[in-house]
């Protein structure tokens, strides 16, 4: 071990998997969270963000992988022994207790160090005691004040508004002084105005208390506003770990770009270093290191696309205005350039049909590897000119005998989507449809959880059931070596410096310490209450009864 700690990690997830009925809800999640950080897990519903949070809280046990807290392995530690507290999505305030007793719930169970004694064997033993009534009262009132609910202690939780219940839930978690506060979409049930206020309040609390916040949301704006670090997830996989600025400006892939903020995503080709072609034009860019003529995705944020006069010398390409909509502080202009649709934000409106010039700084062109170039599946030949794809036999052209392990490759263009589920050979659910300027890229999840990418002319509705057909001659079949094993890659945390990254990789190899369970000491504390506690009980009883009225 090094003496200096370059990274003060509080929580570390190592290759965590969570599988439900054979389906991965969380796949190979590795993540480090620094002490005091505000980390947001962001993604659409069903992306595994809540499952990840629940694993940190202890409500779910990972199928494999480790969760490390302060250097100690807490993977299998039950939730009540973990030094974390959760603010639940629907608050989960106890309906049988008033506001005061809801907040005091955790304190009444907690034990605090209370000096040491030397036992018979001559060892020094740490003693614990419970909080006294007066201490509980003082703490609860302090946290009621923190969340601006000073006079609400006696109120019934069901008589509070959504925002007030939210505050009680936050106070109930914070009063235990957890090292990490977990928040599961806590603002989801509030209206817009209230949500904005609570965002600011949460950020303020985070700053004042200095504890680590792990926040789960599907609202990208919330994530960008509040976080130090955003973890973008999809299908249980971490897509990108970076600061809000970086996630916005340099999304790791088309999914992140589409999910975070508005953007135009176009397919292009990287001709050589610093030269990219899309919209039938070669643009200068600042990216390099791609293979020559590699197909890539280009991402353009609408505020980066500048509209110029068509004769201006700055204009790189010309485009026709399709629509111009006033959005309060800007106009959203949709343009068509060489059959590619682009979006721009401008302070001025334009006439529909007008021809304009477009300019974009090389720096503002974000170029990304395509997440996938082809649909690839490992499967077997099931008969003469038959190959199994997602549980059904597809006709294909091959001379390989039955039972040969093969890899099937299908171009995105060749996946045919049928409106009627029964018209396809297999059925699938549309999980996303991203506009790529001149076509839509749909992602279709089949019933055995393979995701097909398909390029189509139509925008398919998310959640729709569709059929999939593939022409026999479009199925490319390669013989596969069964022993070949694909290495799972870990997404790099972009908020860390190279040095920190190296350190994290080093400690990832180390075995964490066992988490010491203090259950027995807790039992002892219950048996031997403080003398002072007894004395105070009498008059405190009266006080708390008043409180409870």
């Amino acid at each position, binding site marked *: 071990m090094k003496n200096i700690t370059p990274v003060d990690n509080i929580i570390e997830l190592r290759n965590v998997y969570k599988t439900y009925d054979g389906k991965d809800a969380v796949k190979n999640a590795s993540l480090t969270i620094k002490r005091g950080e505000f980390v947001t897990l962001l993604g659409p519903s069903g992306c595994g963000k809540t499952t990840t949070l629940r694993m940190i*809280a*202890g*409500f779910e046990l990972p199928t494999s992988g480790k969760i490390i807290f302060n250097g100690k392995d807490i993977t299998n530690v*039950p*939730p*009540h*022994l973990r030094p*974390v*507290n*959760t603010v*639940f999505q*629907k608050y*989960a*305030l*106890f*309906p*049988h207790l008033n506001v005061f007793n809801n907040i005091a*719930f*955790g304190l009444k*169970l*907690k034990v605090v160090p209370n000096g040491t004694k030397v036992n018979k064997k001559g060892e020094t033993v740490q003693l614990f005691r419970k909080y006294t009534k007066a201490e509980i009262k003082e703490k609860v009132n302090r946290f009621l004040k923190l969340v601006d609910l000073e006079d609400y202690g006696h109120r*019934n939780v069901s008589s509070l508004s959504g925002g007030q219940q939210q505050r009680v839930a936050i106070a*109930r*978690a914070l009063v*235990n002084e957890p090292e990490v506060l977990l928040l599961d979409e806590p603002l989801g049930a509030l209206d817009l105005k209230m949500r904005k206020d609570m965002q600011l309040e949460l950020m303020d609390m985070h700053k004042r208390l200095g504890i680590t916040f792990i926040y789960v949301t599907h609202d990208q704006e919330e994530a960008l506003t509040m976080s130090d670090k955003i973890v973008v997830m999809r299908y249980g996989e971490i897509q990108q770990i970076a600061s809000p600025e970086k996630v916005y400006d340099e999304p790791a892939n088309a999914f992140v770009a589409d999910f975070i903020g508005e953007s135009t995503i176009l397919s292009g080709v990287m001709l050589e270093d610093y030269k990219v072609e899309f919209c039938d034009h070669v643009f200068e860019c600042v990216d390099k290191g791609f293979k020559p003529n590699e197909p890539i995705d280009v991402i353009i944020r609408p505020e980066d696309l500048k509209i110029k006069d068509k004769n201006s010398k700055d204009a790189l390409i010309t485009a026709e205005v399709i629509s111009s909509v006033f959005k309060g502080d800007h106009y959203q202009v949709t343009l068509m350039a060489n059959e590619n649709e682009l979006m721009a934000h401008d302070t001025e409106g334009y006439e529909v049909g007008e021809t304009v010039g477009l300019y974009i700084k090389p720096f503002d062109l974000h170029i990304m590897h395509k997440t996938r170039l082809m649909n690839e599946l490992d499967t077997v030949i099931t008969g003469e000119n038959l190959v199994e794809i997602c549980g059904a036999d597809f006709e294909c052209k091959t001379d390989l005998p039955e039972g040969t392990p093969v890899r099937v490759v299908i171009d995105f263009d060749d996946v045919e989507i049928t409106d009627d589920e029964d018209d396809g050979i297999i059925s699938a659910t549309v999980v996303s449809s991203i506009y790529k300027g001149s076509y839509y890229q749909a992602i279709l999840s089949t019933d055995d959880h393979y995701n097909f990418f398909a390029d189509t002319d139509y925008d398919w509705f998310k959640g729709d059931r569709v059929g999939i057909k593939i022409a026999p001659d479009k199925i490319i079949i390669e013989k596969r070596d069964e022993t070949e094993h694909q290495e799972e890659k870990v997404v790099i945390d972009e908020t860390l410096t190279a040095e920190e990254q190296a350190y994290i990789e080093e400690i990832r190899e180390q075995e964490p310490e066992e988490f010491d369970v203090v*259950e027995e000491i807790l039992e002892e504390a219950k048996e031997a209450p403080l003398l002072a506690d007894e004395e105070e009980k009498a008059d405190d009883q009266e006080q708390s009864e008043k409180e409870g009225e």
Partner: protein
Amino acid sequence: MAKIKFKKLRLTKKVFSIPYILFLLLFVVIPLVLILVNAFLDSDNNLTLENFKVFFTSRANLIVLGNSLLVGIITTAFCLLIGYPVAYICSKMSSGKIIVLLYILPMFVNFLIRTLATKAIFIAMGVELGMGTVLFGMVYNYLPFMILPLHTTLSSIDKSYSEAAQDLGANKATVFLKTTLPLSTSGIISGITMVFIPTISTYAISQLLSNGKIFLFGDSIQLSFEQGLYGVGSIMSLVMLAFVLISNLIMNAFNSNSNAVRRSLW
């Protein structure tokens, strides 16, 4: 009066309650009034308070009443002790509903047949019929009434409450004592009401399962009417009614004190 005229009978919601109101009048209100009237009449239909004197001065009658209350309380306690764990475990299991159904299944058999069968089994086993067998029969008969409301309440408790309690440092036992138990109060109260009230008024079970050795209040009411002592029988019915009302009031008071799940099940 000239102003009286028949309103057109319109099909409003109220109309649908008319059959039930008629039924109530005929079979509940009128019998109750008859009991009340009978209580103050002697065998020659003269107004008298003699019936009250007969009932309240008879030591035997009061012992029977005391016994009935005791049997009711013991039966209810046993039903709760057996029923709560069953309902709790079933609410945690995915197949819980089926198991609850198995508990309710014996109710599909007529209770007299069930009780006679129980008696036959006891005799075959050589068990002496007495208080023990009566209690067994009572618990056996009324257990489903305890399990059903408890299961409904327990399975409707949101899982997030126990998660929140665990999160705040409660171990399994504390989670149960501090969240599940208080949140199921309404079910407990419904269950107690459903068991206690019928058990104090029950008859036949005690007679059959004790060979007539144990005589409960329900049995003595039946006997009074059989012997033509309508006055005393009516007094007994009124006393029983008073106990049912009192226990109902106590239960309601409990239910409003525990502001747990506000809606009552029954």
